[in-house]
C-alpha cells in the first residue's frame, strides 16, 4: 500500500509540476469559452457600410415595394440611412444576359453588393435568385428573403380576393407550439418547458463529451507514461521493489488525481461561469435542470469509466516499447471508446429503446449510454444498478488482466507482440 502510494505520489507531483499542466489548467476554460463565444460574435459583427442592391423584377409587381420592407429598423446604418439602397433595373428591350453581365461587372468593381432576379411568375416553382460575391452571408440573404416574402404573400392573398396587410396575415397564420412535459416514475408531471428539455439534452451531451475527452486524453496519458518508463528503462528498477499491481494502481490513481485536480480548477472557474450564465445570458433554466441525481451519476460514471479505460490503456502501453508503436496502438485503443461515444448519439432520441437498454449494460459503452439515459429519462433503478454492477465486475477483470499483461509485457522490448502472444502472457502470468 505504501509503495503504491509512493508511485501515486511521484506520478501526481511530477505531472502537476509540468508547465503543460499549468498552462492547460489556466488556459483551458478560456479556450473552451472562446470556442463557444467567438464564432457567434463574429457572426453578429456587421460592418457599418451600405450594401447597394439592384433588383431585376421580371414580374413587375415587386420592385417598388422592396426598399421599405428590406430596410427595416434592424437594417439601418448608424446615421439612419438604409443598409440596402435598392435600385430597380428595367430590361428596356435588352437581353437579360446582357444586363446580368453589366451588373456582374459592377459587383466585381465593388459598386454593387448584389442583384436580385425576381421570377415572372410569383406563384410558380422558380426561385428568386440573388447574385453576390458573398453568397454565404446568410443574414443578408435572410433579410432579402423576408422582404420579398412580405411583398409577395399579401399579393397572393389579394389574388384570391383577400385584402390584408402582412401583419394581419402573420397573426392568422402563426403556428401552435407543442410543449413537452416529462412524466416521472411516480406518474407526476415534472418541471416542464421546452427550455428544460433542451437543457437536459444539452447537459447530457456536454457530460458525455467530458467523459469521452477525459477517458481518451488521460487514458493515452497513462499509456504514454508506461511506454516512457519502458523506453527509459526505469521499469526494471521499479519492478525490483514494487509489484506490477502496485505500480499499475499507483499510476492509474495518480494520473486520475491529476485529472481531478484539473477539473476541480476548471470547476471553480465554472462556478463563476455559472453565475454569468444564470444572470447575464438567461441560461439559468438550462443549468437548473441538472438534478442532483444526474450530477451524482456523472461523478459515478466518471470514476468507474476512468478506472476501466485507465487500466485498459495501461495494458496497451505495456505492449508497446516505443512512442511510434504507442501511437499506432492508440488508434486501436480509442476504438471501443469512440464506439461508445457514437452509439451514445444513436440512443439520444430513443433513450428508452431496447437497443439503448442493452447497450447500457455493456461495460465499455455504459459510461456514455447510461449517462445519457439517466440524465434524460431516469431509467428503472434496477437497470442502473445492473449497469454499474457489470461495470464494477468488468473493472475488476480488466485490472487483473491488465496487471498480467503489464507484468509480462513491460519487460518485453523490441518486437511488437501479436494478439496470441498477449493471450499467452495473460495465461502465463
Amino acid at each position: 500500500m505504501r509503495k503504491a502510494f509512493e508511485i501515486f505520489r511521484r506520478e501526481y507531483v511530477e505531472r502537476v509540476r509540468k508547465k503543460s499542466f499549468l498552462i492547460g489548467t489556466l488556459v483551458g476554460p478560456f479556450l473552451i469559452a472562446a470556442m463557444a463565444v467567438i464564432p457567434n460574435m463574429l457572426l453578429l459583427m456587421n460592418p457599418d457600410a451600405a450594401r447597394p442592391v439592384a433588383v431585376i423584377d421580371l414580374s413587375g409587381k415587386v420592385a417598388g415595394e422592396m426598399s421599405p420592407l428590406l430596410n427595416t429598423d434592424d437594417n439601418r446604418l448608424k446615421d439612419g440611412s438604409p443598409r440596402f439602397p435598392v435600385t430597380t433595373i428595367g430590361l428596356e428591350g435588352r437581353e437579360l444576359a446582357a444586363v446580368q453581365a453589366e451588373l456582374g461587372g459592377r459587383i466585381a468593381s465593388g459598386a454593387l453588393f448584389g442583384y436580385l432576379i425576381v421570377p415572372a411568375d410569383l406563384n410558380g416553382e422558380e426561385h428568386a435568385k440573388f447574385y453576390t460575391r458573398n453568397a454565404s452571408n446568410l443574414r443578408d440573404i435572410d433579410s432579402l428573403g423576408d422582404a420579398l416574402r412580405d411583398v409577395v404573400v399579401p399579393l397572393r392573398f389579394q389574388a384570391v380576393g383577400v385584402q390584408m396587410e402582412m401583419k394581419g396575415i402573420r397573426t392568422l397564420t402563426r403556428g401552435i407550439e407543442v410543449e413537452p412535459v416529462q412524466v416521472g416514475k411516480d406518474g407526476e408531471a415534472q418541471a416542464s418547458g421546452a427550455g428544460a428539455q433542451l437543457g437536459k439534452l444539452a447537459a447530457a451531451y456536454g457530460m458525455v463529451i467530458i467523459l469521452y475527452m477525459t477517458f481518451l486524453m488521460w487514458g493515452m496519458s497513462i499509456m504514454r507514461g508506461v511506454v516512457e518508463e519502458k523506453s527509459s528503462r526505469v521499469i526494471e528498477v521499479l519492478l525490483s521493489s514494487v509489484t506490477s499491481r502496485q505500480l499499475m494502481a499507483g499510476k492509474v490513481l495518480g494520473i486520475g488525481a491529476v485529472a481531478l485536480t484539473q477539473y476541480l480548477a476548471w470547476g471553480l472557474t465554472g462556478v463563476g461561469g455559472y453565475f454569468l450564465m444564470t444572470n447575464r445570458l438567461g441560461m439559468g433554466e438550462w443549468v437548473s435542470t441538472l438534478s442532483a441525481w444526474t450530477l451524482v451519476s456523472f461523478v459515478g460514471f466518471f470514476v468507474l469509466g476512468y478506472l476501466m479505460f485507465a487500466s485498459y490503456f495501461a495494458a496497451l502501453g505495456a505492449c508497446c516499447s516505443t512512442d511510434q508503436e504507442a501511437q499506432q496502438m492508440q488508434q486501436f485503443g480509442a476504438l471501443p471508446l469512440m464506439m461508445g461515444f457514437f452509439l451514445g448519439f444513436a440512443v439520444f432520441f430513443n433513450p428508452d429503446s431496447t437497443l439503448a437498454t442493452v447497450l447500457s449494460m455493456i461495460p465499455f459503452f455504459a459510461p456514455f449510454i447510461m449517462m445519457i439515459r439517466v440524465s434524460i429519462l431516469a431509467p428503472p433503478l434496477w437497470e442502473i444498478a445492473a449497469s454499474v454492477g457489470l461495470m464494477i465486475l468488468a473493472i475488476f477483470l480488466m485490472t487483473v488482466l491488465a496487471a498480467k499483461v503489464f507484468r509480462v509485457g513491460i519487460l518485453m522490448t523490441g518486437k511488437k507482440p501479436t494478439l496470441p502472444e498477449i493471450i499467452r502472457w495473460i495465461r502465463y502470468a
Partner: protein
Amino acid sequence: MIAVKVQGISKSYGKVQAVKRLDLEIQAGTVYGLLGRNGAGKSTTIRMIMDILAPDEGSIRVYDRPMGADVRDRIGYLPEERGLYPKMTLNDVLLFLAAIHGVPRKTSQPRIDRWLERMELGAWKLKKVQELSKGMQQKAQFIGTIVHDPDLIVLDEPFSGLDPVNVNLLKDILLELTRAGKTLIFSTHIMEQAEKLCQNICLIHRGEKVLDGRLSDIKATHGKNSIILAYEGDGRFLDDPSVARKDDYGQYVEVKLADGADPQELLRRAMATAKVSRFEVVTPSLNDIFIQQVGLGEAS
C-alpha cells in the same frame, strides 16, 4: 547464513533455452561473481533472482524466504539496462527510489547527500537527470541501488560504461560495502574485475553452470602449470606437444603446459633460440580458466 539459494531453475524464451537447471548457493557476507560470455544467461538468472522474470521451473529463496515485500526492501538491484526518469531532478529520483524501498524521505535525504558527495555528484543534485553525462547517470543509478542500505546488493555488469577512475571509485565502494558485511552478487564478462573482487564465482556457459566455488579452490584445482613468458627472437620453441595452449598478450605470452610437462624443459628450449626476459610459473588467471572452460574455438 545463506543469502540466496537457487534450485534447478530454467528459463526459455520461445525455443531458446537461456538458463538450464541452474543451482546456486550464495553465502551471506561474500562477494559472488556470476561470470560468462555475452548471452550466457547471466542477466536472465539475475532477473529471476530479483523476481522480475518467473522461472519456468525450480525455486529461489532469498534469506530463506520466497520473494516478497519484506525481502525486496533488503535488496539493492542495479539492472543491466540502466534507466532513471530523465525529467526528474537527481535528488527527486533518489528520494523516490529510497521511498519505494521503504525508506522515508527524512531518513534518506542525509544519506543521499553523503553519497552524492562521495560520488562527486554533489553539484548536480538539483539538475535534471537528462542533463547528466552517461557516466554520471551510471553513478547516480548506483546510488539509487544502495540508498536504502540493502543487505544484499545485486549488480548486473556494474562497471560497464565507466572510465578507469570511476571503475576504481566503484571498486573501493564495493569493497567497503563487503567489509561492512553486505552480500554482493555481480555479473561480468571481464575476468580481471572478478578476480580482484570475488571470493566465490560461478561460471555460466550457454545457460549451464560449468564452474562453481571458491576462487582460490578453483585456481588450485587448475594446478600450477601456467607460465608467464616474455622473450625476444624466434618463438618456434612454443610449437611443441608439451605446450597445451598459448595466449599471446603482446607484452608476454601465457603458456599452459600439457599434463606432466616440465617447465624447466620449456625454459631450456626457449633459451636455445630466443632471449628470455621473464619466465614465471603461476596459477592460471581466471581469464585463462574461463577460456579453457568455455573453449577458444567457440569465440567466434
